């Protein structure tokens, strides 16, 4: 699946959900795996940087 789900944690860091090929839609995975109450965004995998040198400093704007 070439989509990713991005949400911001309480400390300002971001988490990125990588969906598995499990038979669920990206929306179903978001509903199940995003922590309750968190706003999330579905983006293309290509929108996520592949250089993870400063991964812990990533934020969502």
């Amino acid at each position, binding site marked *: 699946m070439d989509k990713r789900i991005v949400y911001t*944690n309480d400390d300002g860091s971001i988490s990125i*959900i*990588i969906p598995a090929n499990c038979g669920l839609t990206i929306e179903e995975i978001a509903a*199940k795996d995003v922590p309750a109450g968190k706003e999330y965004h579905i983006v293309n995998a290509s929108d996520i940087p592949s*250089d993870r040198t400063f991964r812990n400093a990533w934020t969502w704007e």
Partner: protein
Amino acid sequence: MATTINGDTGIDKVQDGSVVNADLATGIDAAKLTGTLPAIDGSALTGISSYADSDALSLFNVSGSAPVYASRAWVNFNGTGTVAIRASGNVSSITDNGTGNYTINFTTAMPDANYAAVATTHTSYTTGGEARIAATQDYQTGSVVVETGYGTFANQDEPIVNVVVFR
């Protein structure tokens, strides 16, 4: 009225000694069919051999009588670059929480949080450096967290991370 099974014509409806309608499908008013079918229990079944634990063990090509406990979830993913799942079972997604920190989300939750989660990692570094470590934590029925790192456990992304869950 009676019905007979005729070897040549199939099922016939007989009335006053004569076949009055050879087409049972249209010859019987469904509203006149009453009663219940007899119950079927296992004793009526023939030709079925009994099941033995050894039959299940033989499916796994194992010897001895020790029981087999199959994995309830597993995943192999790349934790570097564009993080991606290579293959998995009963895993809906992994959550990239930061460098060397991932949550494994189960498609179907475990019955409780007392399962065994085994994590391993494979590094692309072939010389020098510390041994790579994969550690599990935060056991939930729907997820488990795995961290990868090295030395005194500075988190680091690894190219192959494996997690297997038994319960």
